[in-house]
């Protein structure tokens, strides 16, 4: 007897197959259009990092030839890479978009947030983010988070309901069935939307290469003055590094992620082109966050705890 019934399969079923990138693109576009169809005031979190750049690219494709029907929001830690800010402003102007900026520095200056002893401002983003969402009355907030980034993120829904305090409760998430996203929410609540949920770091890079998307220069190998802290190569800058005990040196590096300068590490790399970056990531034995994010190393549940409070 045979245990395979009914359907003898053959891989060349498939003039109608989609490549994995086409399938991911199609799904992400579907998510953007669902939000445009069902929400009053969505916003795209845009940092000038590669994930948010891919998000914006997908949104542009989803609504072409009409403009993207969303504004952008950048949570500015005040510790940005200058190349990234320049990229952000140029992109916003090029596509005629509107950008809101929520500034961590302004919160610190106003005494509403206090600088942490370790100088990192990444966790400080939560308050300006959630207050911007409340005051500007956004009801859907697109984030570039991917489930492959981190194990708490692996539990995240594509549509993630947040209460009036922007909190995430992983035990009370709505089941997400088929492609039927339930975005219903009460006034004051909002939904975080993650169109890149099913993408991996490699997918993002392959898509950037396929689509010919421009990125800030810091993603490619360049010489930069860095110093070592907690096993990470950090960029010297006005944010408080290096300390006296830390020695700056010039190295050939690139960034795998872009975030707050105080906690985003560079990796040694000579990958100066997209192809070289893809080749490098394909053989890397470190995850993106493991290689470059100091803040995720604070505790085993650092990401889960921050997400519960309203982080993206």
């Amino acid at each position, binding site marked *: *007897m*045979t*245990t*395979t*019934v*009914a*359907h003898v*399969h053959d891989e060349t*079923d*498939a*003039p*109608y*197959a*989609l*490549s*994995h990138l086409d*399938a*991911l*693109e*199609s*799904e992400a*576009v*579907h998510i953007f*259009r*669902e939000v445009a*169809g069902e929400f009053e005031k969505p916003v795209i979190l845009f940092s000038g990092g590669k994930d948010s750049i891919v998000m914006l690219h997908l949104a542009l*494709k*989803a*609504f*072409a*030839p*009409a403009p993207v029907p969303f504004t952008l929001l950048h949570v500015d830690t005040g510790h940005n890479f200058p190349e990234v800010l320049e990229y952000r402003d140029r992109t916003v102007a090029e596509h005629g978009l509107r950008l809101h900026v929520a500034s961590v520095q302004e919160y610190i200056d106003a005494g509403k947030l206090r600088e942490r002893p370790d100088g990192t401002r990444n966790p400080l983003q939560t308050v300006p983010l959630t207050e911007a969402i409340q005051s500007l009355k956004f009801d859907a907030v697109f984030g570039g988070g991917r*489930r492959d980034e*981190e*194990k*708490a*993120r*692996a*539990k995240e829904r594509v549509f993630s*309901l947040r209460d009036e305090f922007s909190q995430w409760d992983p035990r009370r998430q*709505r*089941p997400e*069935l*088929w*492609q*039927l996203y*339930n975005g219903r*929410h*009460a006034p004051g609540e909002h939904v975080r939307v993650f169109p890149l*949920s*099913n993408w*991996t770091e490699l*997918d993002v890079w392959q898509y950037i290469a396929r689509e010919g998307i421009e990125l800030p220069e810091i993603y490619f190998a360049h010489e930069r003055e860095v110093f070592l802290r907690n096993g990470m190569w950090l960029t010297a800058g006005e944010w408080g590094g290096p300390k006296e005990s830390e020695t700056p040196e010039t190295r050939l590096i690139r960034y795998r992620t872009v975030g707050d300068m105080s906690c985003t590490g560079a990796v040694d790399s000579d990958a100066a082109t997209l192809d070289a970056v893809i080749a490098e990531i394909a053989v*890397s*034995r*470190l*995850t993106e966050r*493991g*290689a470059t994010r100091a803040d995720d190393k604070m505790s*085993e549940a650092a990401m889960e705890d921050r997400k519960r409070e309203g982080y993206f």
Partner: protein
Amino acid sequence: MTSTTDQVAHLADLAATTLLRFATAGSVDDGKSTLVGRLLHDSKSVLTDQMEAVEAVSAQRGQDAPDLALLTDGLRAEREQGITIDVAYRYFATARRRFILADTPGHVQYTRNMVTGASTADLAVVLVDARNGVIEQTRRHAAVAALLRVPHVVLAVNKMDLVGYQESVFAAIAEEFTAYASDLGVPEITAIPISALAGDNVVDASANMDWYGGPTVLEHLETVPVSHDLTACPARFPVQYVIRPQSAEHPDYRGYAGQIASGVLRVGEAVTVLPSGRTSVIEGIDALGESVDIAWAPQSVTLRLKDDIDISRGDLIAPSANAPATTQDVEATVCHVADQPLAVGARVLIKHTTRTVKAIVKEIPSRLTLDDLSQHPNPGQLVANDIGRVVVRTAEPLALDAYADSRRTGSFLLIDPADGTTLAAGMAGESFASKADTTVQADEEGWDF
């Protein structure tokens, strides 16, 4: 305009990296986490820093070996209790294919999570412990896979190392399971004897079971066909959003944006818009920036029609030659996923494709007992993890297919209008498929994998 042949040729180049979505199901101690861990580990999808974190926590807890389950348990509460609470999604890749794994918990009270994982899966892996054979929970998993019409089911008979790698043990379990699942209408069942702990037949072929000539779990995942079910069905196009730039460059552009739910659409095809019943012809298909003359599920595209007719979000565009009927009386099987019950008379919202309408639960004719598939008549209400038949009257007509014909246009959600909670996952039409026509050839001797 790109020609069809060019597109097909282009796709053939990329066919080696298709995407397979699959779900795992197993009882608590069947070794599901170990299988998932083994699959990730042996396919070299676990990176050094992740493995170091697992080793550090395992050592801190005084465990001898790294606990691979820690790779998949992402929440504080899960790590504290050592169980999987919620569906998590994992990603890994081989040279042939990318995989999205919905890692679903095995506890009885989390049937809804298996439903969630199975709803988008092309394949389900049902795990059994070779020592215990087919148990209630196995039948429940098979039934959920059959209800959700998961096209391919893999029976992974685990812990073969603990039964001396005996062929007869495997053969008996495979036969019992295959008979049960085939009766439920599962179209394809592949049984594989494995040891997740020892690594037999997960990624690498086992030296301990030379009587088995079939694929390993990973080989099967790499070669099973995907999406053939979507394009073989009649075309369905739920309208998500109307694109009207009204710009100087595009003063008259009016496009209907959506993701093709099933089938194939071509320029020049006569189409009907539901529920209005108006007809037109597809004038153009814009596939995310490129004009094409053919598109298929699950591509996200924008359709332009010859006639300027009233179409909005929630409408369904289908070939005039093969359009679905519309109805306001929906008979369906639902899996109840919320903590609050669903009772006869409840006023709910029904979300079907891109359309959300008011509805009332007229009847709950029966509740299904998954263990033995018996029907409990008129239960009055459904509670969390119940599966039952419902009759729902909708305020507006829906262009609903049978779930058996289309997982995408035959499925819906019931939503609580008061607080927005997703109450139930619905599947229109019959619960289970009838037994497959191509029956097992019983006269063959031995195992033919």
